[in-house]
């Protein structure tokens, strides 16, 4: 069966544009939380986020028309995909465009533009203090590209057209697991021989009033408004919710044969991915960790990896009590005694939680950890939670040989997903194990 390798990647995150900025912030625990300045959130209980600065669309070859027509979530994906393709050294004109595809994940797509347009097009009803059953809008004043700006398929579709990738195209929209789910599907399509190359990953730009308010009102966000850089604190006793963020992480995946034929540098192998649901609650998580534990075991099986071969875990670590306990229990189920030994950390202390982009960016961090042989820390970790008693790499990065990383995500709708990456050398050894 065809092996799947990573040959290019790029990220846009609150830490900055590009992999250098991402890695140095994550490795050194330079946290990115800050007060919202983009809009008035004085009525919200949470008023902090982690956001991308210095993203200028004109630097990325987007036309002024595209700067208006495309939502920030799609602009992120286009910019990041261009850089990831450049880093992979793929010349679009030299590959078979019909065997190249795109599958990028996003939880909510172009909601920011949709909300902005709504506010311009909606009329205030007479009964001001009541929500109308049906809103009154003015279709004749709508911009002609509004549908494309809003709908999530544009994230993958626009990237595909830009690179002339005319094979598979779909946007994965499984909420907060969308990034790894997209990577998992992309890898399987390559393994099946349907395509040779896939642009995959996740993009999210959710910092907009309606999104802040809906998360705020469901009480899942951190309310540490006075201390934004210490607000996201995964696995710490005093965490109080996740820090909403925006980001994008794009990976170029290829069949090993295709990559070797063109002499590409192989950044790592995608060993396998798995996903299950907990059927428990739309937003809550069970403390038992069984569904995530099953997911991790499946991912290990698909990947032909023994638990003890995993050198580092990049955890979901969303900085909610429910997640951190569910996840800790799951690691114990899947890794047994070894769960107490394997170094685990969450990058969300630094970057916050960019929903569907989170696990894509964290997959990239996992691959850099393999390259650098450095396990990045969990920043803001000060006080242990007795229910979370594993090695979360508190605050200081650790030099350790890393060949295999497990990266997982959990999200609303009760979805759990996991993917395993290996170094180039170790990936070849796993390939030789045969099977799948």
């Amino acid at each position, binding site marked *: 069966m065809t092996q799947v390798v990573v040959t290019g990647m790029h990220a846009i995150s609150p830490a900055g544009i590009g992999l250098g900025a991402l890695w140095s912030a994550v490795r050194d625990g330079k946290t990115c939380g800050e007060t919202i300045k983009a809009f008035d959130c004085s009525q919200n209980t949470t008023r902090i986020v982690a956001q991308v600065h210095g993203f200028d669309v004109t630097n990325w070859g987007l036309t002024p028309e595209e700067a208006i027509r495309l939502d920030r979530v799609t602009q992120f994906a286009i910019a990041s995909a261009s850089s990831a393709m450049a880093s992979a050294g793929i010349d679009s004109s030299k590959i078979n465009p019909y065997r190249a595809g795109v599958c990028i994940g996003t939880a909510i797509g172009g909601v920011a533009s949709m909300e902005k347009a709504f506010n311009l097009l909606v009329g205030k009803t007479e009964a001001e203090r009541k929500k109308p059953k049906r809103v009154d809008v003015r279709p004749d004043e709508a911009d002609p590209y509004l549908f494309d700006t809003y709908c999530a398929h544009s994230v993958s579709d626009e990237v595909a057209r830009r690179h002339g990738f*005319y094979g598979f195209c779909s946007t994965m929209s499984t909420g907060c697991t969308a990034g790894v789910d997209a990577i998992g599907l992309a890898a399987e399509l390559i393994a099946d021989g349907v395509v040779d190359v896939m642009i995959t990953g996740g993009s999210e730009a959710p910092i907009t009033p309606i999104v802040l308010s809906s998360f705020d009102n*469901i009480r899942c966000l951190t309310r540490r408004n006075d201390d934004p850089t210490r607000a996201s604190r995964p696995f710490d006793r005093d965490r109080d919710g996740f820090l909403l963020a925006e980001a994008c992480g794009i990976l170029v995946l290829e069949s090993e044969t295709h990559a070797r034929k063109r002499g590409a540098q192989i950044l790592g192998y995608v060993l396998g991915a798995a996903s299950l649901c907990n059927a428990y609650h739309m937003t809550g998580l069970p403390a038992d960790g069984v569904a995530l534990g099953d997911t991790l075991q499946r991912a290990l099986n698909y990947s032909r990896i023994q638990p003890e071969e995993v050198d580092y875990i990049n955890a979901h670590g969303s900085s909610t009590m429910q997640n951190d306990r569910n996840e800790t229990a799951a690691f114990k189920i899947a890794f047994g005694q070894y769960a107490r030994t394997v170094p685990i950390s969450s990058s969300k202390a630094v970057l916050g939680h960019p929903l569907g982009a989170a696990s894509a960016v964290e997959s990239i961090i996992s691959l850099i950890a393999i390259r650098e042989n450095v396990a990045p820390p969990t920043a803001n970790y000060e006080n242990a939670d007795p229910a979370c008693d594993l090695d979360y790499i508190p605050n200081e990065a650790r030099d350790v040989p890393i060949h295999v990383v497990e990266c997982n995500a959990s999200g609303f709708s009760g979805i759990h997903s996991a993917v395993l990456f290996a170094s180039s050398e170790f990936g070849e050894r796993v390939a030789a194990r045969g099977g799948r």
Partner: protein
Amino acid sequence: MSSKRRVVVTGLGAMCASGIGMDKVWDRCLSGHNAIGAIQRFDTRRYGCKVGGELEGFDATKYVAPQVVQQTDRSSQMGIAACQLAAEDAGLVLKNEDPNQVGIYFSNLMGGMEFAEPELYAQAFLGAGRVNAYQAIAWFYAAAQGQWSIQTGIRGHAKTVVADRAGGLQSVGLAAHAIRHEHCNVAFAGGFEAPLVPYAFLMYGTTGLLSKDTTYPLLAYRPFHRKRTGMVLGEGGGILVVEELEHAQARKARIYAEITGFSVAMDAPADPAGSGLARCFSEALGAAGLEPKDIDHVNAEGAATQADDYAEAAALQEIFGGTAHSPTVSSPKSMFGHTLAAAGALDAALACKMIQNNVVLPTVNLDEPDPQFGNTHFNDQVLQKHVDAVASCSRGKGGLNTVVVLQRHN
């Protein structure tokens, strides 16, 4: 599709303007009933298009627990209801199944806009604190898969994709893909859509695809007609129970059809019109091990715009034109409206019924097929004929194509 595992369809759940339940939808379509009419759910005076296929008589509380009705959008409710209808039709007793081996593959395009619209209003005019907390779980694309999983205890591999109008058919193909990859043994696959609310309808209208010639609602949607004027939207949900063959046989399930081919391919702007769709047909047929002459019927997208139908017809001509046994081609959605992400799933469900009954459904309003579409056999009447293989296609914006091949299982 490398694995040897074979995938079959064993249950169908459908609802659209034609009715609620697969049998009702099938009977209505067999009678050539056109369910499109003037939109009643909101005031359409300011809109260019004033017609649609409304789902009437849908009582969500028959399928969804009262507290869940409050936290879900109409589109999710239609999806959950279609799942229940499909499970009943399949005779699938979920408590007898390993919950980790039951998957969900959904698609939706507009999101939960009926729920979201008053909340957007609240955020704009009433204050952040007035936004319903359920907005966080009602609008987003993966809402329905979570609710269906929680309602039933299903814990398997579950994914939601967004791929414009091709999403529903992609979900069916991806379910087959996932079963072959041993992510699950049985799955609920399809899509659902509720675009007939003011702001969603406004947004979709900006595509310019909707028919504005709606003086006579029954004549507004005319795919492949010489005087076609664009698409008409409908509400609906289509879900298929898709199952690994041996699993279906072990529980003695009725098998409607086998899913033997699946492909996704995009039109390249530099290539001739419709060549991406032609490639998509060709790849899906290749995966199924079939020749064009083996296909008895094609379910066409039938967007009914000048350019979309032209491109689609060109692809049909390239792949199926000139074969001795050229298939019939129709767009049954002309009878109940284009249900966006539900459309491809409804088409696949109807394809199963065509195979079961050896009957093909028509495109209505096709008294004058566009003469530039060559000798493709667009049937405008119900035809009794041997139907062993159907190729169902969906086409999103700019030629985001998906084809699924369904065959009689022997």
